[in-house]
């Protein structure tokens, strides 16, 4: 793995070795690394409980290792990173909410021992389909993860059921999960 993309890194280094005003844009399709069957959760019927039944965090993707480009951190210095996420929710009956949390860490750290990178709350309304798109900046810890050779990832779901009305039945699925890293030349 270490030298998997040597040539890509060499090319990146070359491109960044000119004037310092241009960037390396790294687009990581994180979703492609994950088993599609794990990216959707079907729930219900969730009974009506005063205040709503809370499931707590349930892992959808539990500590998956993602192989990235090795050596990129040797030539590129991250300037910013943004996480783009979209989710689709279908609610048959009842109402409630689902919170998707994404955790990312380096290869030596358990993902869920770190703060979530993204937290996406999907409000569920009876009979409605909902699509949510968010793009959020990530902090420097997360930014550095994408220029390392591996990262670990977890995705959890946390459901809150209806406090009144009908029991909740529905489905939530992650549609896109992309990281866009803007990096500049690192001093040699």
């Amino acid at each position, binding site marked *: *793995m270490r030298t998997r993309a040597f040539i*890509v890194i060499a*090319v990146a280094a070359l491109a960044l070795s000119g*004037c310092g005003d*241009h960037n390396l844009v790294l*687009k990581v*399709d994180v979703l492609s*690394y994950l088993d599609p069957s794990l990216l959707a959760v079907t729930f219900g019927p969730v009974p009506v409980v005063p205040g709503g039944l809370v499931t707590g965090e349930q892992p959808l993707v539990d500590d998956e290792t993602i192989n990235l480009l090795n050596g990129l951190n040797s030539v590129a210095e991250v300037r910013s990173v943004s996480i783009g996420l979209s989710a689709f929710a279908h609610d048959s009956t009842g109402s409630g909410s689902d919170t998707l949390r994404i955790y990312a860490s380096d290869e030596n750290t358990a993902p869920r021992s770190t703060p979530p990178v993204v937290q996406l709350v999907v409000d569920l309304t009876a009979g409605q389909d909902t699509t949510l798109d968010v793009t959020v900046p990530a902090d420097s810890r997360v930014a550095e993860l994408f220029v390392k050779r591996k990262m670990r990832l977890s995705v959890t779901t946390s459901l809150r059921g209806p406090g009144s009305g009908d029991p909740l039945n529905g489905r939530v699925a992650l549609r896109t999960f992309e990281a866009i890293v803007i990096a500049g030349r690192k*001093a*040699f």
Partner: protein
Amino acid sequence: MLRRTLALSLLALVVGGGSAGAQTFSARRMAMGGVILAGGGAGSSGANVAYRAVPRAPKSGWALPLPIGLIPLLADPPEFDPDKPEFNLYELANLLYNPPWNLQLRSPDVSGNDITIAIGKDHLAVDLGDVKNLFPEDQSRIGAVVNGPELGFGIKRFFLAAAPLVHYENDLSFNDALRGAIDGEEFRPNTAYEMLDRGYGQAAVGVHLGWAGPLMQAGDPRGQGMGFYAGARVKLMRGLAYASADNSVAFTTADELFGAEPVNVNYRGHYYDTGPGGGGFGRGLDLGAVWMARGTEAGLGVNDIGTTFDWRVRETTATDDPVTGDYVQQVIARDVPLSSKVPTTAVANAATRIGRFLVAGDVVRGINVTTGHLGAETWLDKTVALRAGAYLDANELIQYTAGTGLRFGAIGVDLALASNSRNLSRERGLELGAGLAFYH
């Protein structure tokens, strides 16, 4: 350390990836398309030893090239420290292409666009934009033999001179898959990607022992007479340094580009090198002939016939350790006897007067490339010379030149403008050369 190594490797790659033609120092020659000047002018005897015997034209002089390219370099020197943000690999590479002798009036900018790398589990694509133009379209083969300058003396027809010799060659190639990836195609599963780079260089110093004289001469060959001149130059040299490297980087992608199983990248390097301690005896031969009649001349010079050096070198291999991923070098033998050759090069040239114009042309068979030069000169009122020319450069592009010479008694000034493609992007640049001329 890795980054410094990478920087140096990239410098070698980008310089090796282009084709550099030589800069012409003589402003007169530069203005005339870089052609070998008629009658034994600048660059003639190095290319054709017989020109040592050709009588100099009356009222000819000698030239002193002026390094006007040093002015901007000294005013704004490049950053050599790779840790500094001003460090610019392209700028340094272009400086290697164009030693700061002539003034570069227009140097193509190296692309400054963003590059994008898109990756997914089974997806990897690189969009380099214009930066991809830095990589050769196909196999890139460059090389040169640099002889001289000679420092010596002559007694009658014989001469003895000390001179260095430097020879280098590089051959860089990508397979079709890798070439496509550089051009923006996606990396594909189950595909082999390969880059090969083979290069070597050697340097030596020694003596040139030779003879050049007329085999036949009747009357004034610049007037109504004719002359046939020949020369031979034996090179007896001592090797100073030798290095050769044979590198290959290859990997084959699996079913998934970024799956659980790593792709094994195979790096193989095989090196031979030595310094002065391993330098042995070198010998070679240059031959030349020039025919002149009624102001017309034609010459043929063949250099480095059988030029061979003996060395005792260190043999080293380098591989990619599959466990640690580090490059591991291993010396497998020392004092290995090795014989190296310097490729034979040849120059054919001709010049004649057509009315008030001196017209000259040459064809140079160098290492892996054949170039040609054509130039003309005319004097107005013996004080102003107008010159123009063109040449086919090492990138197979036609370049254009022009210039003037101003004479003030025994002293003159030569100026030359010439286009070139001696840069990373192989686009057209423009340079100014200058020199002083001292007339007899």
